């Protein structure tokens, strides 16, 4: 089973040179740390920046420069700043190549639920609904099962939906899976030491397995 860092590492391997990428809060943010040095990407922050750099040194901290998680950041050379309307314009028009975000549940159709748990305080969807409705390529970082052992890869989401038929790939602590219309979750890779049987048991939605499933390389 992968820990959070390993999930981030595995997702970093999906990143291609020249991509514009939006990273959600949590594990997705960690992905930036594992992108190989020879691959140059531009990270978008939906509050109005292309070109997120590393966290600032103590002396560089600037209250006017934060990411969507409200963390202090720096800017890379070649950055640009813009309004929230411009930012979501580029998201809606498909200019962002890859969106990586977390999820509470994903359905075999690619529906995603990640913003609201009935009975718990609702904090709001932020930019998640805009991102999932428009992104060309969405990779989800998530735990395969809840702490109680219930699968989060479902036939249908039980939680309120964030977006329909939008997730393309999942990297969970157990596996890498693609969502193929009609087939459901197609198993691509197993986490080191995890068996296909374990993944089958942990997946409530339709699981499609073809041939030998390799162990993932981290």
């Amino acid at each position, binding site marked *: 089973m992968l820990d959070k860092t390993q999930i981030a590492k595995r997702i970093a391997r999906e990143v291609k040179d020249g991509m514009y990428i939006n990273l959600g809060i949590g594990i997705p943010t960690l992905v930036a740390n594992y992108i190989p040095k020879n691959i140059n990407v531009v990270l978008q*922050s939906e509050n109005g920046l292309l070109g997120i750099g590393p966290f600032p040194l103590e002396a560089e901290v600037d209250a006017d420069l934060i990411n969507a998680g409200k963390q202090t950041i720096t800017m890379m050379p070649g950055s640009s700043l813009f*309004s*929230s309307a411009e930012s979501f314009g580029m998201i809606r028009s498909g200019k962002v190549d890859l969106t990586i975000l977390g999820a509470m549940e994903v359905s075999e159709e690619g529906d995603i639920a990640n913003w609201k748990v009935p009975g718990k305080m609702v904090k*709001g*969807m932020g930019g998640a*609904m805009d991102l999932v409705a428009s992104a060309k390529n969405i990779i989800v970082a998530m735990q395969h099962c809840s702490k109680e052992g219930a699968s989060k890869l479902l036939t249908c989401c039980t939680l309120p939906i964030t*977006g329909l038929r939008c997730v393309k790939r999942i990297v969970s602590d157990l596996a890498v899976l693609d969502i193929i219309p009609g087939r459901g979750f197609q198993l691509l890779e197993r986490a080191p030491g995890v068996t296909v049987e374990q993944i089958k048991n942990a997946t409530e939605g339709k699981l499609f397995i073809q041939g030998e499933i390799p162990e993932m390389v981290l």
Partner: protein
Amino acid sequence: MVNKVVKNADEAVKDIPHRATLMLGGFGLCGIPENCISAILKSGMTGLTCISNNAGVDDFGIGLMLKTRQVKKMISSYVGENAEFERQLLSGELEVELIPQGTLAERIRAGGAGIPAFFTPAGVGTEVAKGKETREFNGKIYLMEHWLRADFSLVKAWKGDTAGNLIYRGTARNFNPMMAEAGTITIAEVEELVPIGTLDPNSIHTPGIYVHRIFQGVNYEKRIEQRTISNLKI
């Protein structure tokens, strides 16, 4: 020239009536109109509807206006990190309308651009779509959303001139430019108010036509929510 410059925040907000609809710029605590918020706390108008991406934190930003019970309704995309907010929401004292962030930004932009309604894919199939018209364009489903406008827009810029032209700084721009455009009366507070002719016309973010009142703010705290630091420069 009609004088847009007012002395301070107290003068700028003094005619905001009870039950007004306000827009307040900022993302988290970044780029919020700190001086105007302080003046509203002092002048005590109540029953306000506040359109702002977030609702501040317990002891800063719009959070302070919640504490004084001046806010009847919040229209936001994300309202976490605020215990008083949660208490008022659960007790029914506060109404909340949650809107996807991009839809919120575009609805405000539409208000300022004279576009009464538009179509967006965000929220299709979710509870956000309830009661909204949907339509298919090129095989994809979209929701119809309406413009948002405000009686008063309160924005914060870095520099401004006496003609009302504004320049924002860093990610403190966020919702401020659209809100400046969508207010019936727009009040701008700036860190530095400069004479007309000082700012480069090619670098203005908000043209002065949108700004009705402007003043140089004081004592900016610019509080940071998540102070994240690198140990070494990468």
